[in-house]
């Protein structure tokens, strides 16, 4: 189930910058990103109200504040994607962040979940080889 969701997420990750890139050419990076977060906030609020109300508890006060820091990085990710995606060919939007993610996620899995296995490394190298083979001229 989570694997299928992750695939759908991948589809959305490509579609977002593609559409935002087109809009950036019309109204600029900042307005595009603002619209992106505006709609995002509306949808997220609606989702919280509809699906997540019963799960909210007073215990949320005890959540360490650093766990809310994800948005700082998310902000830059969206800004950079919107700025760059209209200036690069589509394959780089997939290929280059993937390289970055692979390196970083192995580090994160190693330190946070203490799970680093050799099979993953081989698989990641093969996936990367495949992407590289396709893009070779």
């Amino acid at each position, binding site marked *: 189930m989570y694997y299928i969701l992750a695939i759908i997420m*991948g589809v959305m990750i490509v579609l*977002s910058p593609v559409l935002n890139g087109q809009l950036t050419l019309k109204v600029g990076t900042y*307005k595009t990103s603002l*619209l992106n977060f505006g709609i995002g906030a509306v949808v997220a609020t609606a989702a919280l109200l509809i699906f997540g109300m019963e799960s909210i508890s007073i215990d949320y006060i005890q959540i360490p504040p650093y*766990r809310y820091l994800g*948005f700082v990085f998310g902000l830059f990710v969206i800004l950079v994607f919107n700025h760059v995606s209209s200036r690069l060919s589509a394959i780089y939007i*997939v290929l280059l962040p993937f390289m*970055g993610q692979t390196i970083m996620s192995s580090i994160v899995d190693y330190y946070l979940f203490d799970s680093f296995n050799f099979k993953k490394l081989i698989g990641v190298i093969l996936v990367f080889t495949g992407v*590289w083979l396709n893009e070779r001229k």
Partner: protein
Amino acid sequence: MNKLIIFINGFFIVIMNSFNGMLSTSSSVYWTSFMHHIFSLGFMYIIYLIYDKNKFRIGRLEFKYYLPGLMSAVVVMIGSACIANIGATFLIVFNLVGQILISVLIDEFGLFGMEKVPFRKKNLVGYSVILVGIVIMFI
């Protein structure tokens, strides 16, 4: 330079997913997505007020331009749910499957106003290697 920035962006995506994953473990994915977008929107508005010198008005837009915002909310929910359950590496791998699928479709049919790049047979080798890599990770 653009290529380097978007490469570093990959680091940021993982850091973002990790923080959001931690937050959703101690709360819920809906709460995570909500806080993420409220904070982002607030800071984005400040950045917009300071830096945006572009005078074009947004006005009325085609519906498809509203979709990225919708997807961004859903992506945070899926991302934090997945990273808590299947780990960062698997999340990336299956993200990639979806990304390759949709880029092939976009290239093949020129969807969403992108340029048409028809499928070439020589790419089959590359896709097979990618598939083998994913299978190796999965078993």
